[in-house]
């Protein structure tokens, strides 16, 4: 019994570590007729502050405020948004040019000052 709980604890900590290492941002790029399409999917609740939980209390607002895309250290697009963007937001953009090996960095910051960044190399 004791060893079982120890195993369980281990598994839990392992899962937590995996979760922490996973980024909230997914980036895919695709070259289209000389341009590069950047698609991104972000894991985020995007609560707008008007939804209620089961106890009928308001769920506090928690949404991304700013998102920006960098291409080789220059900011190419920036987006400000409200809670009226869908949960787990998806965006796509079209970059002029863009070559294999170029770096794309996408970052966001939300209204609780959480943030995340992910780097991607165009293949």
């Amino acid at each position, binding site marked *: 019994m004791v060893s079982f709980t120890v195993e369980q604890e281990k598994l839990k900590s392992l899962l937590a570590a995996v979760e922490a290492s996973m980024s909230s941002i997914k980036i895919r790029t695709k070259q289209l007729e000389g*341009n590069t399409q950047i698609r991104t999917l972000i894991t985020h609740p*995007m609560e*707008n502050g*008007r*939804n*209620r939980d089961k106890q009928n209390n308001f769920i506090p607002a928690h949404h991304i*405020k*700013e998102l*920006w895309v*960098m*291409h080789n*250290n*220059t*900011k*190419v*697009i*920036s*987006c*400000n*948004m*409200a*809670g*009226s*963007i*869908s*949960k787990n*937001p*998806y*965006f*796509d*953009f*079209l*970059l*002029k*040019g863009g070559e294999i090996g170029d770096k794309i960095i996408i970052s966001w910051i939300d209204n609780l000052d959480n943030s995340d960044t992910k780097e991607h190399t165009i293949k």
Partner: protein
Amino acid sequence: MIKSRRDFLNKLLSFGAYSLAVSTGIFHSPIAGAQWLKARFSLSNYDETISHLFNGEKLIDNHNKIKISRLPYIAENGAAVPIKIQSHFKNITKIYILVEKNPHPLSAEFFISPSVEAEVSARLKMAKTSKVIVIVEADGKFYRRARKVKVAIGGCGG
């Protein structure tokens, strides 16, 4: 590894340059006026939002150089309504997406640098049947295009 005094000084210098670049914002160079403003996103009336954003500037309606695609005529679920915007104006700097009858009409604003094509897509929440309005700023002029979307189940609040 730092082997010598010279090496150490070099490292120190490059670190100094890096921190200077970070603090002066070379890596995070903001596109003009791109900060998130609470005043814009907390307005609850469409006309108020428009007058706040554009300050009485003339909006040119229904220009066919703005293409809205992927936006359904009838959205089964207002929690995620896809929209894709393409535009062929020159020197586009901003794209706004508004939903007229949402509690807060302004959904998103995109600041576009010249190295990006004006082609953007996103997914919106819609509280009820309403117009979706896209406003494009190009060369200091504003162009507006709207389309009505019927929503079967609202996306804001249960």
